[in-house]
C-alpha cells in the first residue's frame, strides 16, 4: 500500500524499480530491519519469546490499543498537528461505552458504535478548537485531555463499570478468534491499519492530510477548505480512539475511568519511531505499525529477560532517541535538508 502519487506512473525499468523503492522507503526498511533484529535477539536469549502464545498474546494483543491510537494520531501528526487528548479520550470513550451498554442494554454493535461516535465527537471538538478558535493543536488538545480525564471520572463516579452483567460476549470483541489462532483484537488492528493506509494514500482526505502538513497556507490559497478537512482529520483520529477504547474494555471486561492517561505518549512514540515527521507532510501507517510493534517487542522482550520495569522505560527512551537521530543522520546524508 504505497503512496499512490509517488508510485504513480512507476512503470520504470524493472531492476531499478526495487532499488528506487528501497531508496525512497529506506526509513521504513531500516525500521523493519530493527524490528527483525530485536525479535531475533530476544528469541535467541529466551526461546519462549517466539512461542505463538507469547507472540499473539504478549506482543500482538498488547499492541492493539496503542496501535489503534497511533494509527489515528498518524493522520494528525502528518498535518503538522498533535492530539494529546487520545489517552484520556480512550478512558472517556470506555466509560461512555460502559455506561450506555449497561443502561440501554445495547448489543455488541451498539457498544462499538457508541465508542466510535464519542471518539469522533471528541475529535470534532478538537478540530473546532484548532480551526475556528485558532488555538494551537498542542494547547487545544491539552485542554480536551484534561477535560476528558475529568469527565470520565465524573460520569463513572470514579467506579469501574463491569460488562459481565451488561452484555454477553463483550470480551469476544478483542479476545475471540474469528480467524483460528489469531485473537480478534489483532485482526481488528490490522484491518484498521489497512483501512487507514488506504484512506491516507488513496483518498482525497489523505491527499489533503499531506498537503496541509506540507504547507497549509498554500493549500488554503489553492482553494482547499483547510478548516473543514482538519476537523474531519481530527474526527478520524477520534474514531480510532473510540475503537481503541472498545478493545481496551473488551480485554479488561470493564471500563476503568483512570486508565488511558499516558497512552497518548506511547502512541506518539510509535509514530515517531515509525518515521513520521513531527513537522508534518511526511509519514505512513505502515511505519506507525512497525513503530508500535517495536515498542511492544521491546517491552515484552525486556520483561521476559526480567529487566525491571524502571529500566524498561529507560531503554524505550533510548530507542526513541536512537530512532529519530538515525533518521536525521540518514536524511542529512541524502542531502535532504530543508
Amino acid at each position, binding site marked *: 500500500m504505497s503512496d499512490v*502519487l509517488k508510485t504513480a*506512473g512507476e512503470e520504470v525499468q524493472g531492476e531499478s524499480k526495487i532499488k528506487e523503492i528501497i531508496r525512497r522507503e529506506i526509513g521504513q526498511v531500516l525500521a523493519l530491519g530493527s524490528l527483525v533484529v530485536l525479535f531475533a535477539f530476544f528469541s535467541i536469549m529466551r526461546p519462549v519469546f517466539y512461542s505463538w502464545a507469547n507472540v499473539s498474546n504478549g506482543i500482538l494483543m498488547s499492541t492493539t490499543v496503542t496501535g489503534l491510537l497511533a494509527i489515528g494520531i498518524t493522520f494528525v501528526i502528518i498535518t503538522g498537528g498533535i492530539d494529546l487528548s487520545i489517552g484520556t479520550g480512550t478512558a472517556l470513550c470506555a466509560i461512555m461505552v460502559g455506561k450506555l451498554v449497561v443502561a440501554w442494554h445495547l448489543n455488541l454493535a451498539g457498544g462499538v458504535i457508541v465508542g466510535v461516535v464519542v471518539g469522533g465527537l471528541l475529535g470534532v471538538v478538537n478540530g473546532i478548537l484548532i480551526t475556528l478558535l485558532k488555538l494551537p493543536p498542542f494547547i487545544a488538545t491539552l485542554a480536551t485531555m484534561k477535560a476528558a480525564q475529568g469527565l470520565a471520572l465524573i460520569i463513572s463516579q470514579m467506579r469501574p463499570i463491569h460488562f459481565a452483567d451488561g452484555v454477553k460476549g463483550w470480551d469476544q470483541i478483542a479476545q475471540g478468534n474469528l480467524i483460528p489462532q489469531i485473537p480478534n483484537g489483532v485482526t481488528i488492528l490490522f484491518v484498521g491499519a489497512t483501512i487507514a493506509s488506504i484512506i491516507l494514500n488513496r483518498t*482525497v482526505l489523505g491527499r489533503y492530510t499531506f498537503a496541509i502538513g*506540507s504547507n497549509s497556507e498554500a*493549500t488554503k*490559497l489553492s*482553494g482547499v477548505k483547510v478548516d473543514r478537512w482538519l476537523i474531519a482529520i481530527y474526527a478520524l483520529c477520534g474514531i480510532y480512539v473510540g475503537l481503541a477504547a472498545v478493545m481496551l474494555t473488551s480485554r479488561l471486561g470493564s471500563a476503568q475511568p483512570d486508565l488511558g492517561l499516558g497512552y497518548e505518549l506511547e502512541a506518539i512514540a510509535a509514530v515517531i519511531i515509525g518515521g513520521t515527521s513531527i513537522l508534518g*507532510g511526511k509519514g505512513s501507517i505502515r511505519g506507525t505499525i512497525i513503530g508500535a510493534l517495536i515498542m511492544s517487542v521491546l517491552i515484552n522482550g525486556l520483561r521476559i529477560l526480567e529487566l525491571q520495569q524502571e529500566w524498561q522505560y529507560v531503554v524505550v527512551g533510548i530507542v526513541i532517541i536512537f530512532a529519530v537521530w538515525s533518521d536525521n543522520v540518514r536524511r542529512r546524508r541524502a542531502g535532504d535538508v530543508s
Partner: protein
Amino acid sequence: MATAQLLSLSGVSKEFPGVKALNNVHFDLNKGEVHALVGENGAGKSTLMKILSGIYKKDTGEITYQGNHVNVSSPIEAHHLGISIIHQELNLMPHLTVAENIFIGREDRKKVRPFLNKTMQNKAAAALLAELSLNLDPKTLVGDLTIAKQQMVEIAKAVSYRGEVIIMDEPTSSLTPAETESLFAIIRTLKAAGKGVVYISHRLEELEQISDRITVIRDGEYVKTLNTKETNIPEVISLMVGRTVDQDQRPDVRPMNSDVVLKVEGISTRNLLKDVSFELKRGEILGFAGLMGSGRTELARALIGADPKTDGKVFLKGQEVKIKSPSDAVEAGIGYLSEDRKRFGLLLIQNVTFNVILASIPGFTKFGFVKSGPAAGIARDAIAQLKIRTPSEKQLVKNLSGGNQQKVVIAKWLTRNCDILIFDEPTRGIDVGAKDEIYKLLTKLASEGKSIIMISSELPEVLRMSDRIAVMCEGRLTGIIDNKDADQPTIMQYATKYRD
C-alpha cells in the same frame, strides 16, 4: 587599487543525489574588489556560495584563502576565517533589537558573566551603524523595520565580523532605487577598506554600477570571467543563457476582445486599500505597477478572499460574486500566484504531480479515491507543455529551480481551468532565460483567452507584457494607462501621485 588575491576557488564540484550542481567551477576574489557572480537560477551560484560559507561540503576542488589552503567545514569556521554571507532570505530575529541581532551569539558578557551588557552592546552597534552611515537606532526591534532596513541590519551584522570576504546573495531584490543607492554606498566603503565582496544579482543593470569583474556560470559549469568595463549587459545575458535575449520589448498588439470578464468596484480594506475599481477583459494582460507598499499584493489578497474587505463588489461576466475565502475565488475560476511561491504557492516537500493537481484534487477522484494514473498523466502533460525541467513528475518540488517552481504553480492553475490568473511578481528570483520563457507563457495564455492580472515592480517587465497598466499609490488606484501611452516616467508619476 591593490590586486592582491584574497580568495580563490578552483575545480569545485558538488553533486546532490541525481543532480550535478557544480562541475569544476573556478572563482577568485581580490582585495578591494566587487566580483559579481551571475547565472540563471539553478546555475549553481548559491550552491557555490554555500560551499564557500561552510553550509555545504564540496566533493572536489580547492579553496585558497589569503594564500593558504582551507577547508571550510562549517559556517562557524567560515566566520573565523572572515567569510560572511548575507542570504537572500533574511535571517533576523524580529523580536530582538537591531543591536541584539547584530551581536547574536557573541554577546558581550565581560562584566558579570551570565548577564548581557546591553549598554555596551548598543554602543558598539551604534558605532558600527555610524561607520556604515546607516541611520538606525540599535534599540529598535527588527520586526518594526522595513525589509530594506532589515537588509541593512544584515549587512551591518556581516561587517561586524570584521571579515575580509562578504558574500551578498541578491541584496537588492526587495529594495527601492534609493535604498539600492545607499547599499552601493556601503559597498563602496567596504571596497575602499580593502574587503572583497561577492555580489550575486539578477538585476544586471546594477552590475555596471557596482562590480569590477563578472563571472558567469551556467548549468553548474564555469563559463567566463569578464571585466565589467569591457563588457555590456547583452553579452552577459547571452553568456548566461547561451543565446541572445531582447531586453526592451513591447507586447505585440493583440486583437482585443471587449468582453469584461472581471469587474471590481470599490474594494477597500481596513488598513490600506481605498475604493479600488477596475475592469479586466478577456485575453487581456492588465499590469499593476506601483511602489513597495502601494497595495497591489493587498488588492490581490482581498480580491481572492485571503484577507477581509471592508467594502467593494466583484462581478464575474456581469454576475456579482461573493468571494469570502480563497476557495470561493478558486470556485469562481480565479487563481492567485503569490510573489512568495515557497510560502504561498507550493508544497515543497511533495512531488510535481501532487503540486500540479493540488487545486483540482476532487476532479481526479472517483468515490473519494484519487485516480493516480490520470493525475500523473496531467503532470507529465504539464511538464511537456510548460517545459518544466525535472527528471520526472515524481521529483520533489524543492529540488527544482525558481523558474521551474513557478511553472509548477502555473500548471496547478491551468489544471484547475482558471480563466483569471493573478500573477504577483511572476519573475521574482527567476533568471533572465527563464524569465523569457515565463513571458512567452503569459502571452500564450492571454492569446488563448485567459485574463491575466500581472503585479510587477519591474517597469520594463510591466511595459513589455501589459496591454493596459494600472498604477497604484498608497492603497488607491491612481490611473490606468494603455500600453501605447505608457513609459517609465509616466508610470512613476502616477505611482507617486498621492505623495507629498
